[in-house]
């Protein structure tokens, strides 16, 4: 499966240009030939075919129908396509409009006009099938080519789902039919000058021989077991001959109750086939024989035949293995009445159990349909194969998907290993494109009930890998605010998001216009937003995004993806890549790999990719020595196809000049905006807008707070905090007075509490000797004229001061203790204390402050 990505593909035109336009220098073609270098296989894709197109996410290629192929003037191969969209591509909010379960294989006819339908032909991966269905129709269970068959029931135009119009429906049908014809006669189409290995030939034989037969799989499995290509060819022809006989038998089986002779014939036939298949005769285990007998009896409702067991003893071990698995699956269904399980059987049974829940994990893909009790062996066989395949595919999905499961049990892995040699993925794949829709439909009818019934209750419980942690819920509900003050406090909390952001209308409009214009143009760009903390940068940007998202939902703007990263919340600048990629695609990879993927994502033209709006908060923390993170971030928007809009937020206005290299700064561009600190009037407005309707503050009090804060920092957060504290103080003092209103006094107290210098208070409450020590420091500073002194020098002064005060002078060690205590409070800055008495000491605050604090006493 992965070989497709690894091997190099060569694209060349198929056939001669149909018509060319001289003026535009374009020429149209009717098909394109894709040759894979490594596997030497080639695929021819015609107009009207359904294709997979490389998308943003490697696991989920886009589905499209090829409408036109041309080569433009600059020799680029281009293709015009009609898109289909998967469920994953539809915005989460719109999915509920569907009102029904959607399988992973269902796609929608895309009628959104915004997408670019003109793509590079090189992005085409391969051909697939898209089958139109009526809305009421059950989704047929995908049989052979689960990965490559899609169903379309409805169309999607960005707003609502509609039933396919009869016109499009018939068109799609027609496209499918046309495909059939092409496939059947494709041998004639293949140009002779291209390498056609033996394989190719056999395949074509196979194709022509087994038209619309659901034995495809059978043949495939046989192919895998047979060794020489000669045998392969001979064999497939034989099968074809057999098949001519079988349909009649089948018909009869379906119409009437199975007659003994018919079923016998059929059973023999099948066994014959199997027999034929093996060249080497291998000894068969007895258990296998037994199983085989049961298989025939169960399937046909006829007693076991002796010739059967005789025949089977000759069959290869490989086929035996095949049958083992098959019979296991059969046993799982309630219809089979098998009583005796051998020991080994049980093991296998368990194995099958594990296998089947995985197989049925695809939700909604299987619909219950009643199946006839009697069933043909072929159908059963295919169903068994299908079950295997489904499980294989599922496991593949699990392994290669975004959450590659570590938890898959070893048993599963074993299973996987067992399956692979039997029906190699590559083999089945090569057959896929050639199986006609008719056949898949036919065999599909037989399977659903079967697969459903296999769902046992005892599935292996998987430990959720992406378990999202949650803080336990509180038992009691949070109390609602009871008084006016509590209400006010709640509103004043920074987290309470107001409906609109007052005083930032202008900035809001600027950012909005910037992003909007870029969105409409479908281009990329950068904007740098700066401002001191607490001026509403992040809040404004979020508000803009919210408005834009609303507009996009109302279809005034093209839809976009919003990604936010915060430099502070990253442990390492390179983690930014990981987070962005996780937001965009849900993949979890290492930082360096993520960078590569993102670079690829933004530098290649993605036809259906939406514009991405990336908000980078605390940009300055993404700084690295080589600045490659910032460089990449700002380089992507300049790429032609990136469709990336970056809003970078940081504290400092001159960040680009200060820390960025020239090449980074130049890419950032000149679109800058700076948020000025709030003025006192604005702060006043913010508070009053938050307190609208609640009478809790005096006008003057609000003004005092806003003036004070505006003078200091202009930080709205600080302003709100002071107000909140004031309400608390008011509440404490309220007991005496009745009216609940915050007065000037309360506000002043709150401000004092927040802005008062702690030092003076600390000095006043220090012990006597600590105060004397500080005095000694001052005296020493005055004497020496330097703002630094050793403890020894201070000690002399200290002793002198003590004598003056009539106190007993402290010992040296006591002095050191005092010194270190003051140092711990950071009243003093003390050198590392290894030097003992020669430790240098400095004051951490102005001499005047110390004087003032000491004088008061």
């Amino acid at each position: 499966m992965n070989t497709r990505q690894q091997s190099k593909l060569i694209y060349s035109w198929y056939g001669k240009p149909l018509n060319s336009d001289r003026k535009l220098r374009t020429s149209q073609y009717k098909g394109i030939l894709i040759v894979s270098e490594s596997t030497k296989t080639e695929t021819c894709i015609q107009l009207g075919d359904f294709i997979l197109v490389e998308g943003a996410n490697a696991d989920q290629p886009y589905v499209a129908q090829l409408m036109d192929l041309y080569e433009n003037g600059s020799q680029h191969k281009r293709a015009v396509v009609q898109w289909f969209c998967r469920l994953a591509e539809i915005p989460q909010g719109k999915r509920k409009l569907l009102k029904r379960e959607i399988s992973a294989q269902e796609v929608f006819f895309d009628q959104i006009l915004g997408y670019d339908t003109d793509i590079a032909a090189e992005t085409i991966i391969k051909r697939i099938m898209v089958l139109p269905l009526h809305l009421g129709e059950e989704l047929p269970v995908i049989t052979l080519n689960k990965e490559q068959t899609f169903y379309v029931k409805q169309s999607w135009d960005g707003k609502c789902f509609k039933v396919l119009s009869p016109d499009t429906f018939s068109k799609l049908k027609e496209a499918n039919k046309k495909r059939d014809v092409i496939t059947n006669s494709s041998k004639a189409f293949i140009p002779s000058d291209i390498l056609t290995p033996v394989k190719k030939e056999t395949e074509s034989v196979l194709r022509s021989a087994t038209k619309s037969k659901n034995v495809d799989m059978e043949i495939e499995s046989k192919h895998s077991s047979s060794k020489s290509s000669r045998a392969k060819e001979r064999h497939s022809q034989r099968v074809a001959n057999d098949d001519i006989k079988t349909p009649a038998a089948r018909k009869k089986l379906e119409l009437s109750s199975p007659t003994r002779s018919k079923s016998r014939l059929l059973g023999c036939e099948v066994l014959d086939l199997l027999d034929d298949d093996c060249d080497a005769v291998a000894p068969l285990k007895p258990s296998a024989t037994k199983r085989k007998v049961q298989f025939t009896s169960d399937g046909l409702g006829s007693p076991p035949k002796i010739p059967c067991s005789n025949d089977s003893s000759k069959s290869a071990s490989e086929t035996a293995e095949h049958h083992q698995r098959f019979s296991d699956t059969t046993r799982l269904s309630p219809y089979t009445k098998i009583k005796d399980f051998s020991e080994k059987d049980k093991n296998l049974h368990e194995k099958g159990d594990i296998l089947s829940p995985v197989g049925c994990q695809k939700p909604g893909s299987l619909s219950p349909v009643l199946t006839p009790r009697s069933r043909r062996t072929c159908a059963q066989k295919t169903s068994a194969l299908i079950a295997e395949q489904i499980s294989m595919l599922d496991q593949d999905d699990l392994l290669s998907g975004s959450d590659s499961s570590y938890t898959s049990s070893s048993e599963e892995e074993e299973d996987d290993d067992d399956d692979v040699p039997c029906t190699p993925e590559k083999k089945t794949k090569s057959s896929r494109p050639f199986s006609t829709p008719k056949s898949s439909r036919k065999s599909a009818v037989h399977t659903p009930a079967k697969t459903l019934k296999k769902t046992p209750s005892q599935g292996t419980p998987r430990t959720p890998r992406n378990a999202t942690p949650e803080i336990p819920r509180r038992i009691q509900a949070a109390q609602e605010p009871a008084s006016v003050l509590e209400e006010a406090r709640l509103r004043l909390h920074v987290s309470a998001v107001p409906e609109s952001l007052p005083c930032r209308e202008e900035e809001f409009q600027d950012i909005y216009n910037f992003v909007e214009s870029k969105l409409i143009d479908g281009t990329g760009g950068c904007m740098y937003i700066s401002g001191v903390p607490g001026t509403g940068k992040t809040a404004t940007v979020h508000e803009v995004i919210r408005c834009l998202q609303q507009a996009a939902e109302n279809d005034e703007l093209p839809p976009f993806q919003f990604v936010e990263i915060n430099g502070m919340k990253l442990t390492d600048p390179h983690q930014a890549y990981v987070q962005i990629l996780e937001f965009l695609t849900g993949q979890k990879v290492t930082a360096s790999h993520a960078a590569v993927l993102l670079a690829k994502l933004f530098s290649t033209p993605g036809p259906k990719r939406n514009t991405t709006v990336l908000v980078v908060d605390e940009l300055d923390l993404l700084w690295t020595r080589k600045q490659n993170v910032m460089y990449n971030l700002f380089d992507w928007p300049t790429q032609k196809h990136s469709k990336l809009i970056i809003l970078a937020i940081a504290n400092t206005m001159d960040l680009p000049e200060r820390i960025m290299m020239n090449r980074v700064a130049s890419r950032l561009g000149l679109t800058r905006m700076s948020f000025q600190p709030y003025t006192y009037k604005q702060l006043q407005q913010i508070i009053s807008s938050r307190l609208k309707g609640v009478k809790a503050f005096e006008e003057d009090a609000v003004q005092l707070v806003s003036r004070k804060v505006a003078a200091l920092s202009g930080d709205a957060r600080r302003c709100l905090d002071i107000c909140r504290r004031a309400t608390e103080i008011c509440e404490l003092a309220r007991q005496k007075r009745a009216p609940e209103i915050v007065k000037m006094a309360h506000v002043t107290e709150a401000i004092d509490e927040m802005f008062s210098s702690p030092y003076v208070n600390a000095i006043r409450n220090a012990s006597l000797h600590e105060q004397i020590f500080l005095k000694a420091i001052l005296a020493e500073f005055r004497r020496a004229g330097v703002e630094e002194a050793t403890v020894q020098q201070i000690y002399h002064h200290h002793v002198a001061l003590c004598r003056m005060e009539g106190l007993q002078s402290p010992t040296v060690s006591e002095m050191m203790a005092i010194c270190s205590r003051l140092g711990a409070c950071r009243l003093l800055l003390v050198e590392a204390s290894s030097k003992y008495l020669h430790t240098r000491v400095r004051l951490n605050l102005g001499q005047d402050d110390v004087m003032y604090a000491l004088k008061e006493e």
Partner: protein
Amino acid sequence: HSHLLELLRRTTVHGESNSALIIGPRGSGKSALLNHVLKDLREMNQVRENLLENPFLSGLLQTNDKVALKEITRQLQLENVVGDKVFGSFAENLAFLLEALRRGNRTSSCPILFVLDEFDLFVHHKNQTLLYNLFDISQSAQTPVTVIGLTCRQDILELLEKRVKSRFSHRQIYLMNSFDFKEYLKIFKAQLSLPDEFPDEAFAQKWNNNVQHLSEDKAVQDVLQKLFQHTKDLRSLHLLLV
């Protein structure tokens, strides 16, 4: 005391997020105050039902953000969600915890009280990532969180980075040993006296009388005076008595 009690009560009862610093010199009873408040809180009915979780981090033990985060995860008992999954990286761990805290909202989640002992040491962590995130949560409508820092440094606010500082609510509770010698003597007496509920009443009476005499003794007072002049730290008094 009442301030802190009220603050924490509001966090638990109303689900309001807060942050505060308790600043005071060594031996001024910061931790004692906090423990006392927590004990009181647990006795209050409403609070007990709301099960207050409190991760306790010490700057001396959690020397970097990585260790601190692991410790928080452990103390919040989020491991049960994680199962046996081993955290690959620091980044994953941080994202995990943030995700956990972001999920909650004001009304439904259990309030969490973070206690950061030796707060000044957390300041020196790289980029102050932990502090930023804790304060940011306390400033936004996520899980109610109260962050209490204990430190003895008076200049702690200057150490905070400006954006971290902006997110801190600037509630500071200063603890000072603002008592004079008379009160000091009272504390001395209270420390030595036997409590009323002592089983042998006669002995307690006699003991307490002796303590009273001791506190009036000149020599004892001199010693205490000297110690008081040197330091107001109550721990040194305890050391002396022992």
